[in-house]
Structure formats: structure tokens, C-alpha cells
């Protein structure tokens, strides 16, 4: 799917982000390497995660200990994680 996108993409923004995800990095690092704004990268990543092209590390955490905490004690960074609810 990623390869198809890279071939047919007219803008290349998504493919650039996907390439950098493959190299490994946080959204901030991907923004720094692609030269794209950090919030644009976050937006692209959100669509890629929703489409199942990339994974968010936090959503794969079956061993994530946050899930064992009462909801009120979970860090705010976990608010978007479906497994933390």
C-alpha cells in the first residue's frame, strides 16, 4: 500500500512521512528530517494510523502498565489511546 502510494502520489507529503517512520523516529524527529511542520506531521500520522499503514507505539502496548492504573491516575498523554480506556 505504501509503495503504491509512493508511486501514485501527487504531493509526496504522506510518502515522505512514511519513509521517515520506516527509519524510526518520534513525530518531532520526523518533522525535523522532512522539514514539515510538526503539527502537519502529526496530522499525516493520525491518518496513516487510522488507515492501518503505520502503528502508534502506544497503541501496541499490551504490556503497557498505564492500563493497570485507575483512569483518574493515567497520564494525559494516554488520553488518545483506545487501550487506556
Amino acid at each position: 500500500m505504501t509503495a503504491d502510494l509512493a508511486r501514485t502520489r501527487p504531493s509526496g507529503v504522506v510518502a515522505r512521512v512514511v519513509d521517515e517512520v520506516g527509519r524510526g523516529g518520534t513525530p518531532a524527529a520526523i518533522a525535523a528530517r522532512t522539514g514539515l511542520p510538526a503539527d502537519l506531521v502529526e496530522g499525516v500520522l493520525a491518518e496513516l494510523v487510522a488507515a492501518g499503514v503505520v502503528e502508534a507505539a502506544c497503541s501496541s502496548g499490551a504490556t503497557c502498565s498505564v492500563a493497570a492504573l485507575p483512569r483518574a491516575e493515567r497520564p494525559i498523554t494516554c488520553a488518545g489511546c483506545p487501550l487506556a480506556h
Partner: protein
Amino acid sequence: MTVACHATGGGTPPAEVTAVLLVGNPNVGKSTLFNTLTGARQSVMNAPGTTVELHHGTWRATGLALVDLPGTYSLVPRTPDEEVVRDTLEGRPDAVALVVVDASALSRSLYLLAQVGTRRPVAAAVTMLDVARARGTAPDLARLEEILGVPVVAVDPRAGSGLADLADAVGRARLLRGLPETAGLPPLEAADLLFGWVDGVLARLDPPAPAPQTRSDRVDRALLNPWFGGPVFLLAIWGLFELTTAVAAPVMDLVDGWVSALADAARAGMAGAPGWLSGMLVDGVLVGVGTVATFLPLLAIIYVALALLEDSGYLARAAVLADRFMRVIGLDGRAMLPLVIGFGCNVPAVAATQTLPSARQRLLTGLLVPWTTCAARLPVYVLLAGAFFPEHAGTAIFGMYLLSLVLVVGGGLVLRRTVFREVRREPLLIVLPAYQRPHLRGIARSVWARVQGFAIKAGGIIVVTLVLVWLLMAVPARGTAAVGDDVPVEDSLYGAVAASIAPAFAPAGFDDWRFSASLVTGFVAKEVAVGALAQSYAVADESADGLGEHLRTTLDATSGGHGAAAALAYMVFVLGYAPCLATASELWRRFGGSWTLRMVALQLSVAWLAAVAVFQVGSRIGGLG
């Protein structure tokens, strides 16, 4: 009041507007703006067919109906709230959209604006300008309006500034200028085009400054570099391996000592009870519970280590580093951890498969784990290698570890091409989280819950099986002893079972009941296989010098003078034949009885074939017997 709209290319807006839909990302001040614009003239009702609340009101300054839609980042819905936003926009062609744009996160707001603006006239209300100014990233709104071709107004809903201009802006709402055609495209391709448009708008507006590098990113530059991060990853793997051996083993021995002392005390306390009763309760039930208890510290240590690795964010980095190697057998980088832990102990390794995201990958990894040669198999290798290859014992043991790797990789390749054809072939694409401090309280709670789960579910299987093994050893199959007496092993039902299966090992050169009995006992726990051999020979010294002489005599006889080849075949069989009882119980708990039984059958078959091959080849070449 109605408001006339003006079209600029790309579609035909409605001639008259009767309503305004308030759209925006979450937490951009949209609801505050709605409250300010409507005052008390509002009501709340559920969106049709959902429990999602929609706030309806009347815009006091214009008399237009105003609908506050739930906050969303995209019109490709992932939640019921976002579905309501999409459906409401599609179901209200009479309305213009007032998109609330966050000046401090302009890209994401522009993306939503683009999605909305492909279908209907829009105007933009820009909030959070104070935040953007403080960061030095406030956009030039006049320039933005010129680029977008739609009205752009700065508002501060709390202070009430910009509201008058907003009413005028809605009256001038238009379709966005220069948007790419996305109709009919798959969502991701449409998103790519729109993100490209956003990137172009930002570049024309004010080329964005390069994103600053965070501390996490600086650490990642080292840890994701194969030349530095690779050795660090291996060090982390070695640390996990050490935890399962050097750290956990003394704790397990300590618990084992307590269980033995308790068993001795229980035997003494039940001196007057019938032999079969004390035997079953102490050697069956109590020892079974003790076996479960022995594993608990090991599991707790591994669970803590895994949670620390995951919570800190390092596990995701390790997965990226190991991914290229693991993809060969259809697994992602995260499978490396359970497989490495397996070389220490298979039980926590099976438990560690939970770090994998997909059920099929967890199953495939779980099936491969028993082929990693755990530390409990080492005493068998040391005894046999010392007795039969005294000059090359180290090489023989190393060969077992090498064969273990071959079985894992080979097994993975075969399973991937047969039963697991659908498992992934794409590289792992994972967005790394920033490094963070682990949540110790959460770790304590989750470790407790998981250890408890093992003790209750897998523990039950272990205790029942050990009681059955005790029964086999307590019931005489021949001789004069009665149930409850001290039945010699060779006279027990257990000995009879071992003798009946021994001929199956004739092609592998170890057709002897004592060896097959040790394999049966080894299923209960691999480390007691050596003890079982010593017990069968009634030898107290379990070293290569003491017990080894008996083994050489037996295997030379059963193999036609090729004792070394038979010994090697026995070692190979011990490596591959079946998971121990605790591992099998954990496999059963996680993957079900059907897969566990299939795995045991597969392992037995592969181990038998490998052992036969080793003996047949070894006995025909010089130097092995």
C-alpha cells in the same frame, strides 16, 4: 435572516444560507465561541441514531441557526463523534461552515478546512493567536485570506473580540481556492493531496522554521544507529537473558528450598496417614503447587523488565532495530524479545508474546518459543557432552544452541509459508513515542495481575498433571509392591509406559527405558531429566564421571557401538521434543488446547526426525562412536 454566498470555482454554493455549522479541531475554543455567539439561545439534542450530543443555537447577531459540531481532526471518521461531524456536513447542504482554525497548530486546522472546503462555502475563525504570537509562529491573516480565497477573521471567544467581523465573514463564505480534486479517491490518496495543498499554503504563507530537535530525538540518533544502537540492543537482550538465569535462578532455588522443606515437614506430619494419601498430597499436590510457586518470581521479574522497557519507550526502538532480521520469518522486531527470553526460560517467553500487536504474530512466536533451548536443558547437554565428548564438550553444547537457532528460523520459515501465509511481509512502521519515565505504580499493579493469572490458570494445569505423574509412579505394574509402597521406578506404571515407548527410539540409537523415562520426566521439567536418569540407575553422583559411565555402557549397547552418536541424538531430541509442562500450560492458557497439542505433536515429530538423522549419519561417519 439569510446570507447570500459567493462562489469562486470548484462547485456551486447554495443561493441562500439558513444555517452555520461550527467545525474545528478539539480544544480550539469552538464551544466557547458557540456560547459567546448564541448566549442563552441554545439547546442540546442527540444526533440522529446516536448518543452524540449536538448543540443547536441561534447566532444572536445574524439570526442564523448555529450548530456546534464535535471537535475532529479529520472527516475520515474513527469515532462516533467524527461520524456525526461527517454526516451532519453531508446532510446540510443549506449550511455554510465556519471552521475554527487554531493558529498555534495551523497545519492540522488547514487540513480540516480543506476537507470541509471541498464541498461547501467556508469561512475561517482563527483562535489561539496569543499562543502562536508567544511562540513567534503567528500567521499573517491577510496573507492567509489572500491564499485561501475565503474570509479569515481573528477571534478571541473569551474576550469577545472579532465577533462582528465574523458575522460579515460568514456572509462572504466561499469555496476554498486551489484545492486539488479528491472526489472518488481512496481516503489516504485524498489525504495525501490535501496535505500537499496544506504544505503549499504554509510555504506561501511563511516557510516554516525547521522543527526543533528534542532530547528524545538526540538519544534516538544514537540508539537507532545500527553501529551504536545495535550493540546497545544486544546489551539489553543480554540483560534480559541474565535476568532469567543469573538473577531469577537463585530466587527460584530459594523458593524451591522452601517448598522442599515444607514437603518434608508435611511428610513428617502425615507419618500416620496411609502411604497413598500422604504421597498424593505431598508429592502430587504440594509439589505441584511448589512448582508453580517456583516460577512466580521469574515471571514477576520478566514482567517488570518488559513493562520498564515498554513504558520507557525503548521496546519500540528495539523493535525497529530488530525488525529487518525478524521479518525473514514473518514476524516484526518485537518478536525478538520473547525469543531471546526463551533461551533463559520458555515460560516467561511465551508470556512475553503479549508485546506483539496481532494475534497471529503472537501465536506464531509462541509456537517458535519452545525451540529456543532454555537454561533447564543445559544440565542434560553438560552431562551427555561431558560423558561422550570430553575433549569437545563445549563444541557439542554450542552446537545445540546453533541447532536451536536453526529450528527457530527454519520452523518460522516453514510455518510462514504454510499455516501463517497471511502474516506480514511489510516492514514495521511504528511511530516512536518520546522517552518517558515508567509508571511504577501501574507496573506493580499489572505485574501482580499477570502473575496471579499464571498462578491460577496455568498453575491449575500444572498441579493436575503432576498429580497424574505421581499416580503413574505410585501404581505398580509388576513386582510385589502395593500402591502406596515405595514402588521401584522400573516396576511402576510410569516405568511400564517408558519401556513401551522406548522402541520408538531404536532408530535414534537410545532404545532404553531409562532414557525414555527421563524424557517423560523431562516433560514435567527439563531440568529433572538428569535426576531421572540418576534415579533410574540408582546413582547419587549425577556428574559425567559418575553417571556418565552407566550412560556410556547403556548407549553403546543400544546403538551397536555408536554410543556417541546415540548421545548426540538424545541431546537433539531433548532440545526439540516438547515444551515443559509449565510452558505447555502457558501456551494452553494463551493460545488454547488445540494449538498447544498441535505444537507438541509437531515438535515431537521434528525432534524424532532430527534425532534419527543425527544418529544415522553420526553412526556412519568416523569419530562418533
